């Protein structure tokens, strides 16, 4: 009975690993392809492990005729992500405290509005959002890129509300007796205690912002505010009939995606917690 159970167990582990490799195969293939030469990438049967390594693809992704990644779009992506997530975090942690612990009349209405907004992706309100931004003269500016995304406070506010409402009321009473007002409570009590919620929030929103394609596409029509997702999207399909070699495209995708994959692996538990609200180890 016991040896039988053990083989079944190891079969299951092997199966789990094989399925995992299949799921990440497109990524692994992209990584391998980014190190292959043109011929290696196009021969049949396809190479999976490169027979020789060509790190030059990464140089080509940044420079010369084949350049895909402009330094400018890298900087734009960083400004957009840090700006939108940073601002939104401030709005959400303070808003979370308000709807979790403060007593006022319209609290339920606000909470319900925020919850409804979760089901209205920006894509469905793209046209009016664009017009509002346009009428505020913010198209092709960093604020125009950042503010409409930072304004999507529904998810974050409710995440912090959930977490903050579990902080015992006694801690707030004690702080108030010590003479703390709500701002001090926010800074000295809530933000330090809500660190796990902040980690979960950051894990999800940094990924979302870095990977966002649609809003930057319409908010930065001019081009100087292009972010990396747009750079990637236009790689290989230039109007001038020039074709970027696929190995250079793969290298570019790795350059854009690798920071997020590394961040993701580092914060995976927080990401999971943010999605599930708790529970999973």
């Amino acid at each position, binding site marked *: 009975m016991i040896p039988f159970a053990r083989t079944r167990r190891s079969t299951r582990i092997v199966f789990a690993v094989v399925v995992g490799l299949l*799921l990440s195969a497109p990524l692994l293939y992209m990584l391998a392809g980014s190190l292959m030469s043109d011929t290696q990438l196009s021969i049949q049967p396809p190479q999976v492990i490169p027979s020789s390594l060509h790190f030059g693809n990464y140089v080509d992704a940044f420079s010369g005729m084949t350049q895909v990644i402009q330094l400018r779009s890298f900087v734009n992506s960083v400004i957009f992500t840090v700006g939108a997530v940073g601002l939104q975090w401030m*709005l959400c942690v303070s808003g979370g405290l308000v709807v979790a612990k403060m*007593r006022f009349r319209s609290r339920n209405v606000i909470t319900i509005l925020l919850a409804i907004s979760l089901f*209205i992706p920006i*894509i469905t309100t*793209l*046209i009016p959002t664009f*017009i509002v931004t346009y009428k505020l003269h913010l198209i092709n500016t960093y604020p125009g890129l950042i503010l409409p995304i930072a304004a999507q406070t529904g998810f974050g506010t409710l995440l912090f509300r959930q977490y903050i409402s579990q902080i015992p009321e006694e801690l707030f009473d004690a702080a108030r007796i010590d003479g703390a007002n709500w701002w001090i409570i926010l800074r000295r009590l809530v933000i330090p205690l809500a660190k796990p919620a902040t980690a979960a929030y950051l894990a999800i929103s940094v990924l979302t912002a870095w990977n966002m394609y649609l809003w930057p596409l319409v908010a930065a029509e001019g081009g100087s505010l292009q972010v990396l997702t747009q750079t990637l*999207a236009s790689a290989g399909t230039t109007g001038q009939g020039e074709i970027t070699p696929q190995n250079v495209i793969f290298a570019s995708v790795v350059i854009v995606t690798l920071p997020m994959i590394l961040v993701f692996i580092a914060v995976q538990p927080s990401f999971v917690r943010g999605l599930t609200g708790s*529970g999973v180890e």
Partner: protein
Amino acid sequence: MSNPSLAQVRSSPVAAGRRTARRDGLAAALMMGPNLLLFTVFIVVPVVGGLYLSFTTWDITNGWPKWVGLANYRTMFADPLVWRSVETTLKFIVLGVVPTVFISLGLAMLINFRFRFVSAVRSLYLIPAAMSFAASAVVWRYLFLDGPGFGVIDYVISQFGVTPPNWLASTTWSLPALDIITVWLSLPTATVLYLAALQRIPASVIEAATLDGAGPVRRLRYIIWPGVRYMTLLVAIVALLAFTNGSFDLVNILTKGDPLYATQTLIYYIYENAFAYGLFGYAAALSVLQISILGGILVILRLLSRLVRR
């Protein structure tokens, strides 16, 4: 901060006087003000304004919208491309969300046990979540390449003696191809959600059932499914929203609605009307249709989940 602020006075029990209930209205307004201001300007106003806009025509570069009553809606009902893209959108969602739900439950069951490198193996399942639709589009475009001596997927399929389809260039297979990419991107989140539900089922319950002779099918039917059923609604909603977003990114990068409108989802048609033809009023009317469809699907999901619970 030596001066007691107004908020503090108001919130102290003494200032509240005879009424025992503390009132934090002013502090709440100050602290939540910026949040609600942005939320109102960029979410509430667009939702309400979008509805108004759908009754107008507007050349946004000059002047204000002109009221045209139901004209946009009349055009919409007479426009065959609208109904074509609604059909495409629904097909895209059903072909994608249903497999996402079932496959992710299977994956979650597969990695819901402990072994030495479990977290490393789980990472393999979750890493695609770090990819953008744009980056995935570029990678999968190569995997889906057609013709002799090209795509990896075609090579694998032809090893089984099957003639591979033309994927992105085919009216039949382009939409399923986009679904495959979106399912791949949606699985990590869905798997995480199911895994959370699975981990709440005590291992001892499953072991006891196994000892009592319950096979995998009966364990799934009587223990696992009842335990994760409540999560299915959330998984379906999250996948639905991902497919709504993905249907723009992938279509715009990979197919532009081609071939022959086979991948023109409603969202892409809205985008084209606004940003290619400048028909903002008409695009707003189509957005109202899009939100109604999304709302309709949410209601149906909700009702389905109630039915299943009974």
